[in-house]
């Protein structure tokens, strides 16, 4: 069974304090790893798709990287507006194209 695990469950940072969120997966045949941001009471917002090990994507203070077993979402010099829950999802080559979602990391950035 495909497994997607995000860590930590919750993270508190001071403004400007860089850190990383982790998404590890045990799947066969990765076809895509997706990162989303979700604000309280709203639907997730798509951030990035990564397809192969070594790939990197950036958007403002966020940078996503991918290895064969995990992905990191690096947050550089975060601001309070970066506070949100970050979800990752993994799609595999086996059968259904439906991705498996992790449970998310709740990030709070204090001013």
């Amino acid at each position, binding site marked *: 069974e495909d497994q997607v695990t995000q860590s930590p469950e919750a993270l508190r940072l001071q403004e400007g304090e860089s850190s990383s969120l982790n998404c590890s997966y045990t799947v066969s045949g990765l*076809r*895509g790893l*997706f990162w*989303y941001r979700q604000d309280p*009471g*709203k*639907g*997730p*917002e*798509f951030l*990035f*798709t990564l397809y192969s090990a070594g790939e990197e994507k950036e958007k403002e203070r966020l940078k996503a990287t991918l290895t064969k077993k995990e992905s990191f979402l690096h947050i550089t010099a975060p601001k309070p507006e970066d506070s949100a829950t970050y*979800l990752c999802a993994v*799609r595999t080559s086996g059968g259904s*194209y*439906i991705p498996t*979602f*992790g*449970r*998310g990391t709740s990030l709070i950035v204090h001013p």
Partner: protein
Amino acid sequence: DVKVTQSSRYLVKRTGEKVFLECVQDMDHENMFWYRQDPGLGLRLIYFSYDVKMKEKGDIPEGYSVSREKKERFSLILESASTNQTSMYLCASSLSGSYGYTFGSGTRLTVV
């Protein structure tokens, strides 16, 4: 800007009522999905559709049904609402399996 629109942000219904949650996308996407999201359980797939009039069960279809009569509209139906269906319901669409989802803003349903 592409959009997925869910008809209600908040909804309160009584036990036993038939409930309709509507979702419309303006991106000409083939695939549409209904999830529910509960604290500690994450996103759970209820039903999805990869074409008009087609539907597939997700992980937790019991107590739900769906309708997709037009490409842009995907409706979730709670046949007889129960309190354990109190949840945040999220609709999403995607162009294909290779692309990320576009989610709606969600409907927070409370069944009393």
